[in-house]
Each structure stands twice: as C-alpha cells, then as structure tokens.
C-alpha cells in the first residue's frame, strides 16, 4: 500500500558524531516512491555517513528512520536488505574472478534442499534477468562470462540487474560513474533510467552534477553534515544548479532564491 503523501524513506533529525566530529547535524532526508534522488556533495560532506546509516552499517547517533511509513527501530545491514534497500558499489559489488551467473545469485544461490547448485536453471535465469530487467545486451556476453572481462559500466549493469531482480525497492548507487569513460557513463545512466522504469527508487551519490542531472528527479546538496540545498529538476536548469554548487564550494551556503 502506497499512501499518497507517504515517502519510501524518511530520515528525520539524524545526527551522527565520530568522536568530537559531527558527520551529520540534524539532517532530514527523504526519497519518494519511484523517485531518483541525486545526492551531491564533496568528500566529507556526509553523503556516505548518511547512506551507511540508511543501509544499517552505522547506527544513527540520534534521529529516526522510516521506511514505507514504518519506523525502523532496530537497524542492521540484514534488516536493510530485507526491507529492499540495496547498495551497488562500483568496485565492490562483484566477485571478479567468478562467472556472471554465480555473481547474479551471489549469497542467494538457486539450490536443491541439500544446498547443491541448480546450475542450468541459474544460467537460464541469468540470461533472462540481464535481458528483461534492464535490457542489458552486449555481444558475446554469456552467463559463463567471467566478470573480470566486463567493462566498468557493464559490471554496474550486472549489479543493478541483480538488485532489481531480488526485489529491491531502493537502489543506492555510490559514485557509479567515477572513473568511467563517456560511453561507459552513458551505459550506467541508461541503467539508472531502467530502475525508474521498473517503478523503483534510486539514490545516486556523486560529486559530478553533469552525470546525475539527466537522470535524477530531485537533487539534495550536502555540505559539512547538513543539507544546504534541495532542488526539483523541473524547477532548475543545469546551469543554475551548477552555479549554486559553486556557491556552496566557496561559502558553504546556498541562497535559496
């Protein structure tokens, strides 16, 4: 049941200190249903702390987290996954030396009662997932392909397809375009569109506004542990957004007008 005004994720008044250092200060953050949020900010702005709290890696120091309107009281990595929150890290998502089909089912193998792999079934399903879930096609790519041989963008495609297949409701992409060539970046952005088309939500973490602008619905700008700006795409042009970001970089503030 999706309530009309309910958000998929609501993080309210989140504060987090590491020793004396404030990583987040009374931060509020939301993701709507079927919404792609661009989470923008420099290193140390608090992006990854925010995400780690959401995905159960860090406990929040203070504050509340709601998922589909219900408060999450005991949060952990397992709990986040059960809820349907999946993170796709560029470098850390896949086992490079293993076959593609094994990666798709990593940790959730298709097995018989005794735990033996259903190899044929899993390979067939892998083909279907890649094709149907995100329209992933690449010449010569088969379920037996070794992940190491895939390009950076293709690897992300596999990781995203995997997350969508396993009913993720929210997919978090951590710097998905970092270090990728232009054509690879394009592929990744297409995969993000695929997430949206599947009716799912996405947090796209980046410090490259040019990459996230075409695919996001809303932008949240973090600086030194708090939100300094929030923009709906249809209200702001890329140019204006870029100017605002320069302003943050210089002053740490964004004028909202």
């Amino acid at each position: 049941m999706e309530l009309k005004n309910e958000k998929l994720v609501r993080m309210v008044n989140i504060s987090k200190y590491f020793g004396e250092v404030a990583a987040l200060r009374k931060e509020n953050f939301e993701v709507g249903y079927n919404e792609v949020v661009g989470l923008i900010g420099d290193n140390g702005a608090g992006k990854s702390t925010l995400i780690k709290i959401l995905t159960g890696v860090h406990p929040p120091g203070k504050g509340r987290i709601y998922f589909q309107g219900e408060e999450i009281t005991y949060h952990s990595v397992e709990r986040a996954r059960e809820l349907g929150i999946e993170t796709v890290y560029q470098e850390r998502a896949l086992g490079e030396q293993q076959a593609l089909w094994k990666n798709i089912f990593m940790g959730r193998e298709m097995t018989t009662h005794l735990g033996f792999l259903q190899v044929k079934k899993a390979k067939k399903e892998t083909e279907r997932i890649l094709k149907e879930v995100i329209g992933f096609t690449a010449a010569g790519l088969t379920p037996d392909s070794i992940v190491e041989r895939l390009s950076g963008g293709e690897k992300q495609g596999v990781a995203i397809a995997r997350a969508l297949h396993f009913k993720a409701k929210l997919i978090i992409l951590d710097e998905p375009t970092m270090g990728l060539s232009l054509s690879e970046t394009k592929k990744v952005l297409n995969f993000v569109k695929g997430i949206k088309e599947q009716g799912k939500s996405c947090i796209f973490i980046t410090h490259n506004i040019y990459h996230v602008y075409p695919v996001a619905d809303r932008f949240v700008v973090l600086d030194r542990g708090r939100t300094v700006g929030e923009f709906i795409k249809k209200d702001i042009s890329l140019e204006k957004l870029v100017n605002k970001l320069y302003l943050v970089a210089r002053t740490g503030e964004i004028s909202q007008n």
Partner: protein
Amino acid sequence: MLKRYLKLSEFKLQWSIFAVLVALFTLFIMGAPRIFLAPDMYYSFMSTIPFMTIMALALTPVIICKEIDLSFPSVMGISAWMFASLSASTGNPTLALIISLITGLLAGLLNGILVVKVGIPSLIVTIGTMFFWKGLVLVFSAAGGITLVPLRGTILFQSLVGRIGGVIPAQALWAVGLAFLFWLILNRHKFGTHIYFTGDNIESARMMGIPVNKVKILVFTQLGFFAAFAGILLDLEMSYYWPTSGEGYLLETIAAVFLGGTSAFGGMGTIFGTFIGCIIIGSLESGIISVGLSGYWTNLIYGLVIVISVSIHSILRRRT
C-alpha cells in the same frame, strides 16, 4: 569479440599443469623405462602420495579463501600421536580414530576462531599453532615412537590402508574419493561458491549476505579434520607412530596446491589442479633418483618445476 568475456585461460591452466605432468613422466619413462613401465612404481606412488594429497585437497579451499595454514602438518602430528597412543592404551582403535579426528577438527576450529574472531592474520596464527601442536606432541610423546603392529589385519586397517585386490592401496581410493567430494563441494555446492566469493571479494560477499566468517572458520576446521585423517592413515600405513610424523609435509603440500594453479590472491583454484600438483610433487623425488641423478638434485628440480609452472599460470592468467 565473442571470446572477449570468456575465460579460456582457466581451462588452459588445467591443461598446462596436466602437460607438465605428462612431460615429467615422459622424461621418467625415457630415463628409466624398466622402472616406470612396470606397475610397482605406481603402486608405491599410490601408497605414499595420498597423505599429502588429502591435506592438499583440504588446503585448497583455505587458499581460495585468501588465507593460509602452516599448522596442518603439526595437527597431523598431534592427531597421529593421539590415535597411536589411544589405540595402544585402550585397545580400541575406532575410539582412538574418532577422538583423533575430533582433535584435528578442534585444532582447525581454533585456527579459524583466532583468524576470524580475534583478527590475527592466518599466516601469523598458524605459525603459532604450528609450534604449539608440534611442541605438545614432543612433550606428550617424549619423542618416543609407538608400535601399531597389532592393528594390522583389523577391518579399520583394511578399509583405510589395506591393499585392494592385494595391490592397490586403499588410501589411494580415499584420496580419489575425497578429490571428487571436494570438487563437488567447490563447484556444485553453495558452500563452494561462498568459498570462492569470500576469497575473491570479501566485502561484496559480506554485503551480499554470505556468512564470510562462518565460511572461513569452516574452511580451517575441515583442514584440521583432514590433517588428522591423513595422520591416522600415515600411522596405519607405517604400523608405527613416529614423533616426527607430519614433518616434511608443509612446503611440499603448499607447493602442490600452488603448482595446481590455485592463486595466492584468492578466489581462484581447482581441485583437478591440486590433484595433479600432488602427483607431480609426490613422484618427483623417485623419478629423479630413478633416472640416475643423485638425491642432491631433488630440491633443485623441485624448485625449477615449481617456478616454471607458477610462471606459466601467471602468464596464462594475464593474457586475455
């Protein structure tokens, strides 16, 4: 283009190690045809190589997990002592067998816990436990041997190290059977997949819900268990417990695993490779002596075979 994604090198790697084996045996046959074309030499290999093979099979998943264990020969030693002294003192070899296997299992478990829960690198932990078990054996046994001759002819003896059809050593069948079991687990079972992912990319494995700590502990535990099993087989084969049991197995077993193409970087390795690696390492010394070289050449040739094979693996892996 079509070949871009496939990893043909993994097959090539297995063929290359097999080719090394064939090349060596060709040399042996040419150098000593009378010895290497007669079955006796092969029966002898079948009686000696299995001890190392069983431990190498069990060591393979540990190395695939990107860990190492240096203590298994000492675990073999303590278990061998345990089996010998208990069956001598109680007269019940089955009980001795069970307790000895449990000892090995617990020793492996201890390694696993120290690595995973205490967080000590396995190289360091197992240097410690290696000395510990070895020292314990010396203290307990007071460096004395134990005869196991009374066990000859028992069903236990026959089924573990008897001669099938009067010629084939039972331990060879155990080694082959276990090789199949390990292959099955690594390639066709969920646990095997978890082992590969744990060694390949522990962060993503953890993120994807693979219980990486449990995987590592289990992997160390089974090595302890199979080291004990090898120790018992050795006791029975010799019909005597030597306080030096286990010595000399460390480097040869590790070399066999690496020779077989298992990568020290984790996530890669095959049972087929390990099995062939064991045959190579286990037959090299006899081969060298049979062709008329003095025993002094053994280490040098070990070194050459290992370095050349591992270089071939590395080159095959790099080429895409």
